[in-house]
């Protein structure tokens, strides 16, 4: 057994934040994002969005957030995007695919977005010092347990986010009811 392997074995996990994977995933995400807003056909947009979502899930893995990555894949790629595709198929898009892609106010919108971009650029350029160069190595193997502890608490103590969690579940319930009522034909 060579020493390199040994050290990798001992540290438990080799560092995953290699620049190559970062640039690949970031590139995929941004290209997907561009395709989402430029494709004429909504299904193509949805497929591009799925690519973006999966790439972002990969980025989460590189940020030592495996649980968030899993949730991203299950909820976003497996749930929300299927819902989107379902709705795209329900509404007839043949007509809209032949029409103008962008609305009449598109120069204004583009200008506003550019202004936002400029704001971001200036913020990142000027406030670089605000984002220190350090990258913590989070304990990956107990990530899920720690998130659970923060959500539900432990040893009979309420977690920091238990109340927020309950509110979120209430929000979901309301959303389900709202969606069901709105899509019903006759109320």
């Amino acid at each position, binding site marked *: *057994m*060579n020493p390199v*392997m040994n050290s*990798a*074995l001992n540290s*438990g*996990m*080799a560092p995953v934040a290699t620049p190559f994977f970062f640039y690949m995933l970031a590139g995929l995400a941004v290209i997907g994002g561009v395709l989402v807003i430029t494709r004429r*056909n909504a*299904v*193509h947009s949805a*497929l591009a969005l*799925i690519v973006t979502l999966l790439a972002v899930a990969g980025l989460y893995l590189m940020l030592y957030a*495996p*649980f968030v*990555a*899993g*949730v991203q*894949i*299950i909820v976003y*790629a*497996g*749930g929300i*995007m*299927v*819902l989107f*595709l*379902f709705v*795209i*198929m*329900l509404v007839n898009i043949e007509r809209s695919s032949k029409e103008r892609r962008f609305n009449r106010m598109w120069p204004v919108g583009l200008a506003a977005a550019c202004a936002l971009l400029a704001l971001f650029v200036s913020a990142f350029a000027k406030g670089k010092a605000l984002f220190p160069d350090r990258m913590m190595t989070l304990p*990956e*193997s*107990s*990530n*899920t*347990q720690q998130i659970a502890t923060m959500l539900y608490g432990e040893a009979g103590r309420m977690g920091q986010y238990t109340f927020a969690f309950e509110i979120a579940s209430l929000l979901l319930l309301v959303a389900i009811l709202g969606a069901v009522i709105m899509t019903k034909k006759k109320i």
Partner: protein
Amino acid sequence: MPNFIMSYLGSTVTPGEAGNQFWALIYVLIIFAGVSVAVICMNWIERKALAHFQVRLGPMRVGPHGLLQPIADALKLMLKEDIIPSEADQFVFWVAPLIGLLAAFTVYTVIPFGPSQAVSDMNIGILFMLGVSSLGVLGIVVAGWASNSHYPLIGALRSSAQMVSYEVAMGLAVVSAILMTSLNASGTGTLSMIGIVQAQQQQGVWFIFKFFPLGLIAFVIFAIAMVAETNRAPFDMAEAESELTAGYHTEYSGLRWSLFMLAEYAAMIAVSSIAVTLWLGGWMRPFPNLLNAPAWDFIFSLFPGLTFLGLAAIAFVGTARMPADSFFKIQRIGLAVFAALLGFIALLLLAIAVAGRFADASVGARFRDGIDYIYWFVLKVAVFMYLFIWYRATWPRYRFDQLMKIGWKVMLPISLGVLVVTAIVGVIVS
């Protein structure tokens, strides 16, 4: 270089965990080849078993007892013209089967064939698996839409609704099994596939028998949901032949169609692996804690070899029973060679078992154990695959609204109830 290759042998963790990209790649290739071969075998077995259920013979012409039929089929499908309808959305039509295939095969990165016989041991293993296998529906939906035809569209709508709703019950059943992993001294559960099996080993019980009948109910719910999830009979609404001609792949032909089939069977094996891992003790042989003397290890390690020996015997009997006509000469020779091959594998496996017993080198013992683990895992999965065929031969097809009714009004409440009761019992016990 030999040193580099050898470095991993004798290790007790997965290559992903060891950070060994070389062995991870080898494992990926082995799994890819293994799953493809398994799908081919499954194809033959399904046709044969289904035929015998239905008082037919099944494929008999291509090779002895049709053994070469899947290969002939694969060749035919590859050579067929790849038709893309002119009104179809070319790119999406082209890419849809690949999505399904990718999702089905990606799942295998975390399936534990043994404590170290997996590509990687992700600590969100089961979450990853559920998530990625749920991506398969995207391929189906998109294929149905891209065909630009009514039957595929209805098939796609059906399957998306079906898979999304059964995922809920499936997920809840899985959670109740994950709850059981935390019933150990430290009180921490795990989402890792390997960890789940090890938890069953530590607690000395397969989760299907844990808190009887809670584990059993959760398992049954999962077993039903996984049939619906893979669009197999009696839930094969998405490709219901008598209603929608062929459902979402009506417009597909040739290689692209065979990719859908490959994805479907790979997904079947994948969900069966989840069930085996969560409830049936994964790679563990029967009674690993009770019968743990080295002698028992040895006896159980003979099983793979004996199984192949049995298969070889069946093939030899088949050879002997073939008509003595000269017309069947080539077939007889072929079957005899196949039987000899099986016998050779059997002898090899038996030799490894014996060598592992007496030569106590770490690599040799590990190799023996590895074969043992993989054998028991594959055996358990094979039972599920047989059940899939059995369902298909026995039952009529559910109607779509009945399927949704069962999913939402029966399976979901039961799985929620099982989850709650499991949690309560778990708290009381610990």
